[in-house]
């Protein structure tokens, strides 16, 4: 059984039909990426999975359990954590407090401590800046913090929304290396990206979204070599 099974979901913003029947699945241990242009519905798909918006039709199941009618906080409790688009760290809280907030739903003190060590090991920069207010971090550090905060929930499924947004190329490389490492440690990742080249090069499988529909899917390598993808998203003629 797939860890996450999204089945023909239709999501609306008022009268706007944003997702027109998306079906994807994520298996345990995978990195799956959704790529597509602005407005294709990538973030809406993530937000629908998180329960921030609810689908009008279709089902979402997490290891067989239907979650598409649950409020957002209950989905978090079932092990789905998100690093939202634009990072959105708690600017007036310190780095350490941000990470604590990530473990909000958890009660196991030992596990929280272990995961804090894990996050600091992944991002030593955060450890140096534990006591600093998150709003004063650089963009790259804030992205590390957003991912670290999501990891503190010890999620079964980690949702990453455009982690490369607005970062210098060297930091993009660092972030993607870390995503690979997080996955290698056993966390399943669903990654939404505009930077298709980077995303496809680390993903096991990928879906291409266009105006609310899945138009292509395959392994990361297949899509990297797909002429349509090359033309539309990789800028290769």
């Amino acid at each position: 059984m797939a860890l996450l099974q999204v089945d023909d979901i239709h999501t609306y913003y008022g009268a706007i039909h944003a997702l027109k029947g998306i079906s994807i699945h994520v298996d345990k241990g995978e990195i799956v990426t959704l790529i597509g242009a602005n407005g294709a519905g990538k973030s809406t798909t993530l937000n629908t999975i998180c329960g921030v918006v609810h689908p009008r039709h279709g089902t979402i199941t997490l290891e067989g359990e239907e979650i598409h009618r649950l409020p957002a906080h209950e989905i978090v409790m079932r092990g789905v954590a998100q690093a939202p688009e634009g990072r959105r760290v708690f600017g007036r809280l310190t780095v350490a407090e941000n990470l604590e907030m990530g473990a909000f739903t958890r009660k196991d003190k030992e596990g929280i401590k272990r995961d804090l060590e894990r996050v600091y090991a992944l991002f030593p920069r955060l450890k140096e800046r534990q006591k600093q207010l998150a709003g004063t971090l650089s963009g790259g550090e804030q992205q590390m913090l957003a991912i670290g905060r999501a990891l503190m929930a010890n999620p079964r499924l980690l949702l990453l929304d455009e982690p490369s947004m607005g970062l210098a190329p060297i930091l993009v490389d660092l972030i993607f290396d870390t995503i690979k490492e997080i996955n290698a440690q056993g966390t399943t990742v669903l990654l939404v990206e505009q930077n298709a080249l980077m995303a496809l090069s680390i993903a096991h499988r990928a879906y291409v979204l266009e105006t609310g529909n899945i138009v292509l899917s395959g392994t990361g390598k297949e899509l990297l070599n797909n002429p349509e993808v090359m033309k539309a998203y990789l800028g290769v003629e």
Partner: protein
Amino acid sequence: MTATTLSRTAEKETTLHWSRVVGTGLIGGVVAIYVGLVGMIEALAGRVVITGLLTTGQVILLGVYLLMSYQAAQKLTGADAKAGPLSVVAGALAGLIISIMLALLVVIGQQINLRAMFINASPRLWELLTLGRGVPTGLVLLMALGAVLGALAGGLALLPSRLRRAVSLGLVAVPIVSILNTALFAGRGVSALGALLIFAFFTAISYGWSSVGGQARERVAALPSGQQRLLKMIGWSAVALGALALPLLGPYPSEIIDTVGIYVLMGLGLNIVVGFAGLLDLGYVAFFALGAYTIGILTSPEITWLPLHLTWWEALPIAILVGVISGTLLGIPVLQMRGDYLAIVTLGFGEIIRLIFLSDWLKPLVGGSNGITRIPRAVPPPQGFSDQQVLWYIVLAGIVVAAYIATRLKYSRIGRNWMAMREDEDVAQAMGIDLVKTKLLAFATGAALSAVGGAIFATKLTSIYPHSFNLLVSINVLAVIIVGGMGSIPGVLVGALALVGLPELLREFAEYRLLVYGAVLVFMMLKRPEGLLPEARRKLELHEGEEV
């Protein structure tokens, strides 16, 4: 060698902004003229601060001189550099400009009748401004005085910061102590010697504390925890004894502290809603009104349609319950609203509640504009004491319970929820926080405390009218927590003392209360946005990187 050259060039680059000094002086002049024309100087001229020397009106003018000249002296150079002795000249210049502008006002006022527009532009004002010496002499004197005051304020900028802070505190303490003396003990200000002693005392205490306070704190921290706890207990007992002894000041001071106390109680509640949870509630008076009216309806013998006639104590839990329920009910429709939208809706809610109580529709039940009277006292006072003196203990109990609840909540999981929600609702939700529960809990807790405030208010006055529950109450409470320091619990106490207590003491002040509120709020937002006694987090946020 290179380093010296560098620092020298840096020194040379410190430009002197004389235009800014003049500008600040001009602003000071405008403020002084304004204060004169709205009548504050005249109205407060009757109240002596230092016998034979200073009246409250003059103190206000003096404050303008010192504050603006000090600002001018600081503006002479950029933020980092010190102007050195030149700051005295800058201060004197600003003080002189203020005096010149006031002098111009006097000259113009004596040629043209300004009273058609400014009823306070009276001969009495000219007399006060010319120090009673007539036009040419008095005006020269005023200018000389302005320059001297400005120079003193400029000199203040030269002092090391610890000493400067101590001297400023001493300067502020003199009029406050004098006003307290006049209001509470029917004195007539303080004598010149007394003022000097007060100044010396507070300056010395402040300076002394700033030099040994840190060490003392370290030494206490080094003590074994048992002794630390003992010290803490001694400290708290002293505070408790002081609070318990307050009504001994007499019936009139008791009435003032009761009023301050009710504002502290409401401030603690609103602090939860606005300070902790970040929900800007401008209709906070609604719950205050509901608490008061619940008490009125349940206890007053005037209410014939519901002949329960409970005692105040029996009605209190019901009033709290009404607060909780109405807080939740208001919360439900505004769950989706944020920031300014929320503020407007709650503002409307506050007015609706007042208008309902005022309406003809409910007149048979709650008395309309006649309100409800004959509300019983909570506790009959013992022989020789007034109702207001006894009421303080109820107020105090309310404050203690409210402060306890607020502190516990702040550092609990719920407090954490509120903080995260205040920072970013969406992400808070994504962290697994139940926004509905978290928001409603904030509204309900705040409303309950406001309802307790209303219940006490009702028995304090023994009568309630719809007009006691206007928008201004909400704004006052909000101003209290802003001035005190958003999110800070001791800040509420200080804010209420400054914004509710002081104006009560200065009766002549009443008509200028809003004017002063405005000025104080603008000044606070510019110079000390974190409030008088800020929460550690806000201080960190606004002054990160600065020396503390």
